[in-house]
């Protein structure tokens, strides 16, 4: 498969990797079929996402979706973050083959789970 330059950049240089020690919300979701896993920790203050970190295990699209997602939601209000869809994430990555869309679905699911966790 050929991946976009942006995809490769995020794979080689993941943004916001790790965990927040002062997180106000944490979500950890696993795709039950393939075992891919994404973990998000958020620091939310006054309904704004002030900091975000992620950890991921799985195929490259899962790793990249986590990284791109953290850039998309950093600094956003929780209401803005809730509006984010799988399509928005796929667009931000520059598209993925349909058989890899599950990676974006896992990322959005984990985000929504974290936003519920607060």
């Amino acid at each position, binding site marked *: 498969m050929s991946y976009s330059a942006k995809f490769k950049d995020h794979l080689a240089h993941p943004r916001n990797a790790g965990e927040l020690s002062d997180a106000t919300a944490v979500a950890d979701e696993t795709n039950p079929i393939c075992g891919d896993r994404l973990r998000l920790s958020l620091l939310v203050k006054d309904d704004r996402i002030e900091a975000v970190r992620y950890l991921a295990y799985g195929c490259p699209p899962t*790793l990249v979706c986590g990284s791109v997602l953290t850039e998309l939601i950093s600094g956003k209000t929780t209401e803005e973050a809730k509006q984010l869809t799988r399509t928005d994430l796929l667009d931000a990555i520059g598209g993925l083959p349909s058989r890899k869309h599950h990676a974006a679905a896992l990322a959005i699911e984990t985000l929504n789970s974290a936003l519920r966790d607060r």
Partner: protein
Amino acid sequence: MPARRVYLDNSATTPVDPRVAAAMARAVVENFGNASSVHGFGQQARAAVDRARREVAALIGAKQNEIVFTSGGTEANNLAIRGLCEATATHGRHIITSSIEHPSVAGVCASLEKRGWEVTRLPVYQNGIVKVEDVAAALRPETVLVTIMMANNEIGTIQPVAEIGALVRERRAAGHRHLWFHTDAVQAVGRMRLNVDEIGCDMLTMSAHKLYAPKGIGALYVRRGVRLHGQNVGGHQERERRAGTENVPGIVAFGEAAKLAREEFDARRAHDRALRDKFEKVVVERIPDIVMNGDRELRLAHLSNISFRFIEGEGLLINLDLEGVAVSTGSACSSGTLEPSPVIRALGVDDELARGSIRFSFGKDNTEDEIEYVVEVLVRAVERLRALSPLTLV
């Protein structure tokens, strides 16, 4: 494109040797005749094909009229298994194979299963090797074929083919007349010294592009006396076993590659082994939480299969590729369905290890300097992916 490129995927295919390419280029221009034509042009092409056939036969200790050229290993496996089973169908419909065969063997067996043949798939154990006593126990009066690979393509483990060959011959001598033994030797040819009489096989599959020749040409060794139904029909080529105008340039390339493989066998094997051993030694020293897959001794000298805990193979593969290093992984993820390597799974390891397996396969053109570069890139990539992995959380 990365500044530096290192090819460590020689089990997938090998770079074409310039000497092989030169021989092939000459054949394209000079031996354009149809090898079946009676005139001089045809006879010249026929002579080139015959010379190549002698070289390929010599590589495995066969006679030249026992070599059937095909389009590659997959076609040779199809011809061997389906051709033999169709020819022996009135004597029995049972096949014995292993659980770690290449898809071109496993797939043909599965297709025959749908058409009424029974297939016994023998386990391999933690070391990735079939047990001869399991083969003996699986034999039935209606067994017509045992097809077990010489060396595995993912982990390189060498199967006890000579013992299996002896068992099959012994049973045949005792009255089991329609029992035959095929081995897929695609990964072994040129990497191990092979002799079809010592192995005791009735058919043996080869592919030229694993031997520094181009793709599109392979061969099946068929011992004299073995009856096969041709799968390509409509011509008399290859003694009625494979109809179609001969791929003369491909065959010439295969012949040249076989000759070089024989002449340079010892040097190539020592070179590959030295690089592989150096690589493994440094990787073990520098990267914790890894598992080497497959038997440590009974394996091909040019191949190393390693599982890296906490990370997934494809992510590591692409990270290495971004730095110009080419390797392969047996696991694949598609449509949200995980398909960990069936070979690694057959070793009885957990999903995480099966997903994190990477094959490094070395070749005659690799250098020590390249190995040092690969180790540096690998250490960094594994650290980066592990820093990202939630599996490292306690």
